[in-house]
């Protein structure tokens, strides 16, 4: 149950184009940082911080058999774990609805944009291919896990190097200089609706009173490759268009961070 006064207060501030922490409506928290190579055992890893929200992502490469319907492609798996240390509401154990949604939204952006050229992950058609696993861990949830997790996953993919391989044996201690076949970098932006206002990068207090949210993943060329709507209230077509507009604008900011780091 949300505190009614807290919501009224947030709406009152939004009507004055202000937010609880003094930001503008479409302003991300600072700093947005990406740190690479934070895990010794992963083939690629990154730690993303947006304000006080911190998310880790790691990439592991495995050998496997291609799926029968895509014999010439490698595989992609995304998992998210919301660690209890990052938010008192998270519990350990099998992933809950929230964790599943985050991992699926991250997965969809990468998969549908064809961020990884999966055909290059195939070693022998129908027999042997690479499977890329992305694992996401939250270290601190101060709001907007979606965008932070998506950014961390991309950064970890960018950072990953193929391990040395001899036939079906992988030498994980020996990473080659070969990178993953990445063709696109889809940036996810979540736009939230509270009352009749749109905002990005919600903090925890704002997330609790959100009417609707729309996560939009946009590629370099401005094409949308994935979307996910959440929240209890329906959105009109005009609203969705407006939210996509905001998202398209904000991808530039996150993309410049990803390109720089």
């Amino acid at each position, binding site marked *: 149950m949300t*505190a009614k*006064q807290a919501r009224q207060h947030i709406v009152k501030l939004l009507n004055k184009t202000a*937010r609880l922490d003094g930001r503008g409506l479409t302003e991300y928290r600072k700093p947005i940082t990406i740190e690479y190579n934070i895990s010794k055992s992963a083939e690629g890893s990154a730690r993303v911080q947006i304000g006080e929200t911190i998310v880790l992502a790691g990439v592991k490469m495995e050998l496997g058999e291609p799926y029968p319907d895509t014999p010439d492609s490698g595989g992609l798996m995304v998992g998210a774990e919301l660690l209890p240390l990052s938010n008192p509401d998270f519990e350990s154990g099998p992933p809950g609805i929230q964790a599943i949604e985050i991992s699926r939204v991250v997965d969809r952006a990468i998969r549908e944009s064809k961020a990884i050229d999966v055909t290059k992950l195939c070693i022998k058609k129908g027999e042997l291919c690479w499977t890329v696993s992305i694992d996401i861990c939250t270290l601190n949830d101060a709001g907007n896990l979606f965008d932070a997790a998506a950014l961390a996953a991309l950064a970890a993919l960018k950072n990953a190097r193929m391990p040395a391989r001899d036939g079906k044996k992988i030498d994980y201690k020996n990473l080659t200089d070969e990178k993953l076949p990445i063709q696109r970098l889809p940036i996810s932006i979540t736009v939230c609706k509270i009352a009749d206002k749109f905002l990005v990068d919600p903090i925890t207090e704002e997330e609790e009173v959100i009417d609707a949210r729309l996560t939009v993943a946009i590629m370099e060329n401005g094409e949308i490759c994935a979307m996910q709507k959440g929240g209890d209230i329906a959105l009109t077509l005009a609203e969705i268009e407006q939210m996509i507009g905001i998202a398209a604008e904000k991808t530039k900011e996150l993309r410049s961070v990803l390109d720089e780091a």
Partner: protein
Amino acid sequence: MGELIVKEKEVVVPGEVIARGMDFLPGMGTTRQSDNIVAARIGLVNVDGRAIKLIPLSGQYLPRNGDTIIANVVDVNFSGWRVETNSAYSAMLNVKDATGDFVPKGADLTQYFDVGDYLVAKIVNVTTQMLIDLSLRGPGLRKLGEGRILKVASSKVPRIIGKKGSMVSMIKQATDTKIIVGQNGVIWISGEDPKGELTAVNTIRKIEEEAHIPGLTDRIKSYLEQITGRQLQMQENSEVMAQNE
């Protein structure tokens, strides 16, 4: 003969031996281990005759009789409301302590307070089993309007209120906000200007962080003057601050 090992007002950490010998008695925040009085939490030593107490520097709020707190309604039942007190124990507010109205049996109590409402209430009874009764009868006790809720360590509340309310009234004066500080470390802030409100929040966070460093009032005063560009005067109010708006 007993012997005091640390000086009065000194900071002790859990496990530290404060006094030896049976002449001393363990008070709040201390325990006896064989002959020794040992600190159970981090705090300042306070010797009161033979009893040794600790003024806690950290830790959760412990409800005490007479405290004015800000509490959140979590449940409505037949005879009243269950409210969260920002401590390990929830409290009960009975209809008869909540309103002077005649409330017929079986009336819908949500028309008074509903789940999610914040109340300024006074603790009127705490049993040894930590069953807590609240009352809304008294000046300033009521349901709160819209505003933001801030949680601070309850041990810092006296610092935020200041001597006779001087600190909090200075913040209110500087930022044009309404502020109510509950003894349980829950603070309600509301202001017409979002900027002033944010300044108030930041100031309270600063007080919380720097409460232990001497010269706090002067530092906060110059901090507020620098941000708001106003000349501030210290004023002491005789009223109890938690009820003041």
